[in-house]
């Protein structure tokens, strides 16, 4: 009935030395105690209001006690909340867990940092009724008047204009002050005209730090979108634009969230566009390099995208999945140009090793197969194309390597090089390119061989095994909490199919190698276990050993720098 039970009263009575408080007395006291407590709390609220605060403090309660001529509670206030503990053997008795503090300890402890002293600062809240956009004021559009207020306003305007008028919603006016217009023109002019770098740097600094730029954000996003589309061949301008994007993103006074969807296409374009910068033929200007260095731009943009995902990923849950999807499509499509592949891999790598593990790793073999012709001297004549392919290969290697490093960091225990076969790599020469082409051509020939040769029973069994795995793969991508990627189901299926093929090849490759080289090193059971490491690689708990070894098979020694020292000595 009352908040205070009579048992509570009895307990309190016991604590002050009245051992046998009759039940009736306790029962009569309980409501009165509650009433007094409420009285004191109301006094405390009054004190709080007079202190112009909205949170009740213990000092308020003490003041209220003093108001009622009751002795206040003495003692030291503890910083944290009180810890109540249940008394042993009692179901409803609690006590404050008061830790004993050693006095010496307290004395010896270093003095806590002194709190900052109170200070007064002045700023203009409004100048002739208009709030200046300075950091001390609330950002302009962040503040929305309460619904109630709006109602009153509309009511008033109705009253004013016409007693029975219909409520007319006026189109939202977006007034840009003269200063802002000039500012916008100056900045855009600077960027387009490619003035000297120090000026542009100053402009970017201003964009990154100044408050009150918020009204310009839609104009800037539009400007960036337009210019990116118009000037895909101008690498310097694109670079400047991306720097503008970065500045806008890091400005703490701008709420860029609503405009993010307009910015993202331009940014992604700069990452995975087929051609950025001028064609080499047009580059006749002396002093210029062979080709515009669009690789740097792609690197920069990849970092920018990872920054965006980190900053806004929490607010927009589908932001990163969507970016990943776009990039993955570019990565998986064999028809895309090398530059696009480069951008896609770079972008995925920038999103972190986990994303790489989920997207790139399962498809790496297919991709390498596709890449192989461009890498080899014989198949690809054009020096430039080969150069591009090498870059793609390099970035892929880095991405996979970083991914592996992070995995090794988390699962060092699983790392056991089961199918590591030093003999297999015996003929690798020191020059990397030849190594790669060798191993690749090697694997290609092997796979051709295995394709023609009749399969063994184990492989067919494994192929059957792979069927349920494919389904699991689809299911997993939807259910697992860690996988942020949503692949369209067709994609998954096709991936899985590819993977099945690949793994089949992989397996046969192992076997052929095994047959060719030392049989005693690798037991057949081991090779059975290590059949499909890559297709499984998106799983977190996958055994790293076989996975790693197959990667080594693919990439050769180049992957070794990514292996931490302790793990590395296993190879030696």
């Amino acid at each position, binding site marked *: 009935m009352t908040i205070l039970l009579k048992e509570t009263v009895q307990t309190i009575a016991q604590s002050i030395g009245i051992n046998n408080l009759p039940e009736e007395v306790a029962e009569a006291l309980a409501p009165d105690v509650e009433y007094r407590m409420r009285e004191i709390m109301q006094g405390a609220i009054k004190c709080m209001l007079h202190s112009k605060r*909205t949170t009740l403090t213990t000092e308020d309660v003490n003041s209220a006690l003093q108001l009622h001529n009751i002795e206040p509670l003495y003692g030291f206030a503890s910083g944290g909340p009180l810890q109540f503990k249940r008394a042993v053997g009692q179901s409803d008795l609690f006590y404050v867990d008061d830790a004993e503090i050693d006095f010496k300890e307290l004395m010896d402890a270093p003095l806590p940092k002194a709190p900052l002293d*109170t200070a007064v600062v002045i700023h203009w809240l409004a100048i002739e009724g208009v709030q200046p956009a300075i950091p001390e004021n609330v950002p302009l559009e962040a503040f929305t008047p309460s619904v109630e207020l709006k109602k009153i306003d509309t009511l008033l305007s109705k009253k004013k204009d016409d007693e029975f008028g219909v409520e007319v919603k006026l189109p939202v006016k977006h007034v840009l002050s003269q200063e802002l217009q000039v500012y916008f023109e100056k900045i855009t002019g600077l960027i387009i005209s490619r003035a000297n770098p120090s000026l542009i740097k100053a402009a970017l600094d201003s964009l990154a730090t100044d408050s009150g730029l918020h009204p310009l954000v839609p104009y800037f996003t539009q400007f960036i979108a337009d210019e990116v589309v118009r000037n895909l061949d101008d690498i310097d301008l694109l670079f400047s634009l991306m720097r503008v994007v970065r500045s806008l993103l890091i400005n703490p006074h701008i709420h860029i969230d609503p405009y993010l969807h307009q910015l993202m296409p331009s940014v992604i374009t700069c990452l995975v566009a087929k051609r950025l910068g001028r064609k080499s033929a047009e580059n006749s200007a002396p002093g210029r390099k062979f080709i515009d260095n669009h690789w740097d731009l792609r690197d920069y943009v990849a970092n920018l995208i990872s920054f965006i995902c980190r900053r806004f990923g929490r607010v927009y849950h589908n932001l990163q999945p969507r970016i990943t999807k776009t990039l993955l499509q570019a990565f998986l499509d064999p028809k895309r140009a090398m530059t696009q592949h480069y951008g896609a891999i770079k972008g995925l790598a920038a999103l972190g090793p986990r994303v790489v593990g989920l997207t790139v790793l399962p498809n790496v073999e297919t991709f390498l197969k596709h890449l192989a012709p461009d890498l080899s001297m014989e198949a690809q004549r054009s020096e430039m194309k080969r150069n591009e392919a090498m870059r793609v290969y390099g970035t892929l290697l880095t991405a996979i390597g970083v991914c592996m490093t992070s995995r090794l960091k988390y699962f060092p225990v699983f790392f056991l090089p089961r199918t590591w076969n030093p003999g297999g790599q015996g003929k690798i020469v020191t020059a990397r390119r030849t190594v790669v082409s060798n191993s690749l051509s090697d694997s290609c020939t092997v796979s051709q061989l295995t394709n023609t040769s009749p399969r063994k029973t184990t492989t067919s069994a494994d192929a059957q095994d792979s069927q349920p795995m494919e389904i699991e793969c689809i299911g997993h991508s939807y259910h697992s909490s860690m996988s942020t990627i949503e692949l369209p189901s067709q994609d998954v299926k096709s991936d899985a199919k590819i993977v099945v093929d690949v793994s089949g090849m992989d397996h046969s490759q192992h076997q052929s190698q095994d047959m060719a080289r030392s049989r005693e090193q690798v037991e057949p059971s081991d090779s059975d276990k290590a059949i499909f490491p890559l297709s499984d690689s998106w799983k977190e708990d996958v055994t790293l050993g076989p996975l790693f070894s197959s990667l080594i098979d693919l990439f050769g020694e180049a992957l070794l720098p990514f292996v931490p020292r302790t793990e590395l000595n296993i190879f030696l």
Partner: protein
Amino acid sequence: MEEEQIKNAVLAYLQKKGYRQAELAFQEEDLKSTSSSFKTDTDIANQILRYSKLDNVPASYKEAYSKLRNWVHSSLDLYKHELLRILYPVFLHCFMDLVAKGFQQEARSFFQNFKDDYETLHLRDLQKLEGVLSSDHLQEMELARSLRENKVTVKMCQFSFDLLLQYLHNTDSSLMLGVVNEHINLQVTPGQPTSWSDDDMGPLLGKPQEGVSEVNTKEIKWGMLEDSLEDKAEKELAGEAEKAEAEGKEAEGDEARKKMGEAGKAKKLKKDKVSGTAGKSLKTETTSTNSGVPRVKSELPMAIFSEESERRALDDLRNRARLSSSALPSVSFYTFLNTHNSLNCASISTDGAMVVGGFADSSLKVWDMTKSTEQHSSFSSVRLWNIPLTANLVCYKGHNYPVWDVQFSPVGHYFASASHDRTARVWSMDRAQPLRIMVGHFSDVDCVQWHVNCNYIATGSSDKTVRLWDVATGECMRLFTGHRGMVTCLSMSPDGRYMASGDEDGAIMLWDLGSGQSISPLMGHTGSVWTLDFSCEGSLLASGSADNSVRIWDVIGSLKPPRIEEKNAIRRLRLLKTLPTKATPVYSLRFSKRNLLFAAGAFNPAKKL
């Protein structure tokens, strides 16, 4: 069957009342006449049954009340809000009846069941009453006692009244009828039912409401102070204008000279507009707005200013920026940083050069914007400080409880204080004892404010009223009711005619001192209003609140005489501008003599958990 019930009811009644002999006699009688000997009238039987039910079952309160509530809520919209007005008092009295009869548990559950209906309007009262669990508490608590001892007046139109009576009779809810009869004074007003906004039910006052109208008829001289600086400034300006007129008289001809004495102002106004100097037209308009205000001589001896300070003040007046609904003021904000939630109050000097903060550890800190000094004060006393000396000059003791507010009079060496001991006191600086004690509020006096002509002080209290007192006699001159919570701040318009008051719920009321009527409520703030100030010519009102905003309201626009249409048209003060601050509740606002608005508050960023 029925007879058995009746017999039991009668027996129970006799037992309860302690009529031993009657009980015995009744039992004897009962035994003698074995069965259907007494043929009772069905009407009487029903009455007896109902009586027994009513008296013994506390649940009947709940039942009857919820029936009434349902009926009111399902009644026609036209009459609904009038009928709604009686629900709250009925609810309170049902609850208190239950408590008085000792049904603690039932009272509590009744309260919990229905309190949601009233929480938006009467939260504080409900919080107070919730704890009441025994009849002792009812006696002890001010609010409950005054509620039980006095009738609440509820106005309703004839038709609503008839509806209510009909309902109460038809449904045999004599219980509710009893409550209404006992505690509510139904006032039947002729004509159509009044609208929503016109008067929602005011606070349930302890004092019978008839007193209010009586008090409010007393005559008040609300004009500006005679011979004040403003007065002088006006004269001086008039002199200047005359000169200007004299210069231009050749062109204007001789008639101008004739009229110059009285109608000079209008002419000059025109002339200034032609000449186009902003400063001049500004001055003339300020003078013209105040010219219609009567002058009142102060009954208190006034201090005499030095020549120099007077000149400076006049200078300020001359350079005052003119504010109106189209010309909003500039606001300079003083933010206290790192206060750790310990700033209790803040004040800014009129020229904005000094700002003082009062802290929870009883220290005062004065910032001269360059150097800072510290001072201390204590509980339940008022101290006078000398800022140049940073020394405490006098300690005025007199209040028995904490002092909530102190204000200096606009002119002279008087000040007023408001305290938890339910009094306001007027002091003179040279005496250690108060000159007048204003007694009358039912609860703490939370804020105090001087009238511009120094003859009156206004006090706002936790009993949700604002009172105006005559300083000379100590008499209560006006009683303003309408707030729904504790009155937290007051402000007087510079012409002395209007007063604004803000409360803890965020409402601001504007009152006409002459008539004692509320002019318009200002809704908009979502947190307690901590501070209010009128601009120097009285055209704007600035309010600062716990909801981290400064709002600027148009006073003149809302004072315009109501259009002829209907007297109950919604008239609200127009909100001109909301200036949000960055997590800084506004503690203090002040218009400078030149109409620059100063605001102060403590930056209190939300803690991340």
